[in-house]
């Protein structure tokens, strides 16, 4: 009787220290040796994305603080064209969807569908950038460039930073298309596709905050 109790207590203690070598079952998470590389890479990139969001939070806070500091210049209500913003939002949302389709195609190792979905994602992203670039050029031409007021400096910093992220994402996207074309769905390529998908979806999440805080709240009367 007492021997049984002793054995089980000893077993528990060994399990607590991880002495049973992760157990044959492998059910004790964290004790089965290092995690697969896909999880390590994905998790590390997840941390990067979260820190990127913290950087954006700083830009959002700056924008919110400087919202009223127009220095006698135009405010958001005078400048923003919500039709353009709606089109930009639609393009980015659709590109997030096609990026998801590309992830599925990569998982089932279908090269053709992967390239098609990535190409559509790229086209939608370029459309977004074209509209945003036209909007910026239009603002500058109307004398509402980033030097006009603190409000416009904050606006161009925040929205421009998101646009730069999208540009970098498109370069990455083209790189992934080329790598899959040249090297196929190797393990390391698959990890890069995973990280790229995280990046692209995260950009869309940041855009939700941009169109809500900057455009919809900013154009309120």
């Amino acid at each position, binding site marked *: 009787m007492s021997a049984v109790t002793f054995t089980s207590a000893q077993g528990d203690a060994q399990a607590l220290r991880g002495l049973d070598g992760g157990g044959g*079952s492998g*059910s004790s998470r964290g004790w089965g040796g290092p995690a697969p590389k896909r999880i390590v890479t994905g998790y590390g990139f997840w*941390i990067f994305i979260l820190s990127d969001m*913290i950087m954006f939070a700083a830009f959002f806070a700056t924008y*919110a603080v400087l919202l009223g500091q127009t220095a006698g210049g135009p405010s958001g209500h005078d400048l923003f064209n919500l039709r353009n913003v709606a089109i930009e939002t639609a393009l980015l949302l659709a590109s997030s969807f096609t990026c998801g389709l590309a992830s599925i195609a990569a998982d089932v190792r279908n090269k053709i569908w992967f390239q098609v979905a990535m190409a559509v994602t790229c086209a939608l992203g370029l459309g977004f950038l074209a509209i945003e670039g036209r909007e910026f050029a239009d603002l500058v031409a109307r004398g509402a460039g980033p030097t006009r007021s603190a409000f416009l400096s904050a606006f161009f910093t925040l929205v421009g930073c998101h646009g730069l992220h999208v540009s970098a994402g498109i370069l990455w996207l083209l790189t992934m298309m080329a790598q899959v074309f040249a090297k196929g769905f190797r393990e390391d390529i698959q990890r890069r596709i*995973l990280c790229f998908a995280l990046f692209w*979806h995260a950009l869309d999440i940041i855009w939700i905050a941009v169109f809500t*805080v900057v455009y919809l*709240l900013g154009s309120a009367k």
Partner: protein
Amino acid sequence: MTNGREQADDIDVAPGDEHLEGGVAQRVLGYLAGLALAILLTATSFYVAGTDLVWQPSIPVALVVLAIAQMGVHLVFFLHITTGPDNTNNVLALAFGVLIVMLLMVGSLWIMANLNHNMMPMDQIMQMQR
């Protein structure tokens, strides 16, 4: 005796990976559901922003709530962040990120509004400098 943990979720899942046995059609359906919800929330946001039908001071609150809801939709349907035990690490990192983001934004707005409130009106500062 089933433990639950020993079945499918005895190993973590990378952020962005789906823990799903279903086929391609089921996964595409998941993305379609996310897309539909996102379109619904976005359309509601744009509609609410320009409407005269609701009490005006409630509009900013509604917009923020809709935005947070849509971020949740994107996290669940596109980034596959779930509440499952295989996602604990991803959720914890996300929670910490959200905490820092909240501290940064609320703290900045609070401090700057307080400073602004306590500052002397601009015309009086101008007079003191004369």
